[in-house]
């Protein structure tokens, strides 16, 4: 698909020389605008501060791993370590690819076509993100596993006694894909919103059909958003523990957990986790190469208009079927199984008295973490997009450090510094929020960066020339234009914080129950029915931010769905 880029560029140049996309690195018809100014302190200082924070888990791991002796290296360089690392790499890449293959059409259909119920699909498509990984895996096993609901349903009429094995690679791949495609979906949808439709119109004028236009002009412009989302999906995959355990795929996180759970060996666990950090950095370097250095904003004068909807015609039926299948598998299936468990145990009618408080706690930490993380992500994203300095590149990479790590590692890192050096803050909400920030920052950075890329820096410069301060220009011009992406990032953080477990369990104030911990408690005592209620509330609450995102945004952003 991407090999078609040169044509896209040519079309663009021919069609509208003053508003071209410079897709590709060496082919730009117009020299790329480089910001000559050094980053102002108002951007640089907070960005460095945030980067320093995100290094806490790595620093902790280095301290722990340095306690190991020479046999540590012997253990690390076993054949088995390499094997599970390769397993994890395969899973990460295939999950990222499959997520993109689902999410890009889904985002395009819900934003740019006359698909019936676009807003509805757009609202519920990101919701699988909020289903805790182990709950999702449990429900998949219950439905598709041996002796699961599907097999039961098929056994009667068709005599099916065995389904294809769900355990192992395919099961883990399917489950992780179903629960991570929203990363790509949110990122691509935000980018699609901010896209100037003039190029697509030009392609249509030149006689290309809707599909060709999509592949020749739309898709290449979405590349940074797809890659940013795919990177999040890949990093989520390498840090996940719940899915790979329940679906029995021999992934790297299992090695780390075995060290904590079976041998209580924090040193070896730390050394293994550092390998995972190295792997995440490798993925980042790969992403940077794929991302390229093209400019994606509108270069000419005038403002972007909103896009015309593509009429689907008879294609609306396969399109609807596609949306239905994805949502049924990723949301309908887990919710259906949870609902079944809930109904089955309803007659026990124990009042779930703590659920209101738990819901309130979940919303509190989710919203606080979303606000703080988004705020922290802005200087990092600005530094990366506007001032392409070496320091910016490093700050961005460092900000991903905590993201490829299993949650327990980040949690223990903050236990370590919290209990030892920040005693008054330990087990309080502020430190909990900071730990969430470190864990989920890349989600907000990736989303903000994707949108900032679409804002022409000249607009900001114009504001500066008209007398705005650097901060004022960013605030009054850049941020409003980049809002779709920033909002998507905030929603992403909200959803993932709501379901987070290890950090919440270890760092929240003692006795602070959330919906996710309620799910965990009930599932842990084997009462799946009881676990279903908080899990369903979790999904319901999560629909609020995604509904807002799927709706209209105020002001200057080009609107796609009308």
């Amino acid at each position, binding site marked *: 698909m991407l090999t078609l880029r040169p044509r896209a560029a040519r079309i663009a140049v021919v069609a509208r020389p003053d508003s071209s996309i410079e897709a590709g690195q060496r082919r730009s018809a117009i020299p790329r605008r480089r910001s000559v100014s050094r980053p102002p302190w108002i951007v640089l200082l907070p960005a460095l501060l945030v980067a320093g924070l995100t290094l806490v888990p790595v620093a902790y791991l280095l301290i722990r791993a340095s306690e190991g002796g020479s046999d540590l290296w012997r253990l690390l360089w076993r054949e088995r370590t390499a094997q599970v690392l390769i397993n994890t790499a395969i899973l990460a890449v295939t999950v990222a690819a499959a997520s993109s293959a689902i999410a890009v059409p889904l985002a395009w259909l819900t934003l740019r076509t006359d698909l019936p119920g676009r807003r509805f699909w757009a609202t519920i498509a990101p919701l699988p993100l909020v289903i805790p990984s182990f709950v999702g895996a449990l429900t998949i096993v219950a439905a598709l596993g041996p*002796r699961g609901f599907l097999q039961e349903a098929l056994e009667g009429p068709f005599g099916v006694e065995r389904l294809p094995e769900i355990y192992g690679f395919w099961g883990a791949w399917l489950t992780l894909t179903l629960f991570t495609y929203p990363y790509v979906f949110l990122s691509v949808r935000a980018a699609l919103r901010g896209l100037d439709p003039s190029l697509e119109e030009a392609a249509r004028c030149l006689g290309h059909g809707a599909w060709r236009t999509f592949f020749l002009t739309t898709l290449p412009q979405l590349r940074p958003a797809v890659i940013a989302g795919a990177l999040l999906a890949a990093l989520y995959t390498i840090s996940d523990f719940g899915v790979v355990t329940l679906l029995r795929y021999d992934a790297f996180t299992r090695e780390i957990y075995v060290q904590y759970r079976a041998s209580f060996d924090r040193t070896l666990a730390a050394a293994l986790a550092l390998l995972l950090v190295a792997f995440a950095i490798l993925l980042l370097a790969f992403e940077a190469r794929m991302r390229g250095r093209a400019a994606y904003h509108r270069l000419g004068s005038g403002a972007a208009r909103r896009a015309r909807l593509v009429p689907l015609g008879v294609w609306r039926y396969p399109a609807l079927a596609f949306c239905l299948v994805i949502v049924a598998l990723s949301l309908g299936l887990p919710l259906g199984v949870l609902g079944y468990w809930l109904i089955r145990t309803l007659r026990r009618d124990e009042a779930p008295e703590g659920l209101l408080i738990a819901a309130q706690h979940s919303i509190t930490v989710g919203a606080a973490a979303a606000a703080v993380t988004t705020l922290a992500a802005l200087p990092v994203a600005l530094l990366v997009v506007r001032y392409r300095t070496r320091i910016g590149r490093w700050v961005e990479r460092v900000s991903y450090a905590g993201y490829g790590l299993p949650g327990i590692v980040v949690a223990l890192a903050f236990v370590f510094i919290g209990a030892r050096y920040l005693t008054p803050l330990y087990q309080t909400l502020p430190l909990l929020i900071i730990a969430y920030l470190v864990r989920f920052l890349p989600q907000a950075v990736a989303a903000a960066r994707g949108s900032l890329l679409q804002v022409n820096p000249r607009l900001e410069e114009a504001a500066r020339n008209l007398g705005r301060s650097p901060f004022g220009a960013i605030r009054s011009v850049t941020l409003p234009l980049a809002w779709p992406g920033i909002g998507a990032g905030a929603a992403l953080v909200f959803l993932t914080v709501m379901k987070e477990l290890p950090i919440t369990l270890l760092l929240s104030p003692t006795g602070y129950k959330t919906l996710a911990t309620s799910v965990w408690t009930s599932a842990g005592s084997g009462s799946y029915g009881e676990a279903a209620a908080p899990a369903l509330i979790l999904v319901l609450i999560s629909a609020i931010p995604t509904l807002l995102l799927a709706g209209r945004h105020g002001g200057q952003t080009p609107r796609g769905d009308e």
Partner: protein
Amino acid sequence: MMAEQFSLGGSRPERPMGVSRRQFMRLSGAAGLALAGNVALRRATTAAQATPPAGGTPVGSAGKVTIYSGRNENLIGDLVTQFEQATGIDAEVRYGDTAELAATILEEGDNSPADLFWAQDAGALGALAKEERLVTLPDSVLDLVDTRFRSSQGVWVGTSGRARVLVYNTEQLTEADLPTSVLDLVDSKWKGKIGWAPTNASFQSFVTALRVVQGEDGAREWLEGILANDPVVFEGNSAIVRAVGAGEIAVGLVNHYYLYEIREEEGEDFPAANHFFAAGDVGNLVNVAGVGILRTASNAEQAQRFVEYLLGQDGQTYFAERTFEYPLVEGIEPGAELVPLDEIKGPEIDLGDLADLQGTLQLLTEVGVL
């Protein structure tokens, strides 16, 4: 938006306990103070919940104790409340995964807020003991429990026990059909009829015991024999018991108490029962949950009161009646259906020997079970 649901709206007729009339009027009268009202209500309800019914000792007057619990809140939350009401000590509990809480205590170092660690299994307590994080318990506490179920250095003590059993479907099988040893399950007549949960921690400690008793090769042979019988894999004990009840499988390797929990939910006619193997069989391994007091505890006295409470009449009865576990203190009867501990005669194993979980995981991986 959400805040309104929790706020003290003017329409709410009753006054929450613990809020004075004036305070309440002021809060409910002030429009726009929804959030403040919300916080006040929460504080008020928390205070109301924390206060025991009139006549009891007021909680908090006797100090407090901070507990890190690897045991599930649904199982032991009520017992903690009973302790608070009986002693007036305010118990703050942090729930989590047993191993992760052990790692947390180690990372916290000398500043650990925890006074007491209540672990799901002996292994995690052993890890803390190894790093010298636990104090020696007084003999008055230790001697309540059989030496099999406590630390040999006296730094932790078991509070309740659970036995491995074979749960079976009573419509398909009778006691007479069942094997006297777990080792006999490799017989081909059990093909396709066994359920197990290889990822479950209790199963894994059984395999560790098997390695201790039968040797590495013997354990491997058993695992391969079961695999050849095409066992149905589950993700946990309760799923196995449910499947046995539903007749999907005939027998399952589980901890004894899941059956009783599920029977409470499903009704007395749930067609499943527990089978104990012959006395001394490794299949009857008895594991314990236990407690240890931290060296850095700032409320060591209250922590010891908690241990004493768990091992006292009330605590042990709670385990027998509410969690269906084995009480470990002499003189407290286990639930009616349980084979008494001294009759089970689990294998002669020091629970301290079950620390080599890593070797077990390796074996399970090699055989292809994990």
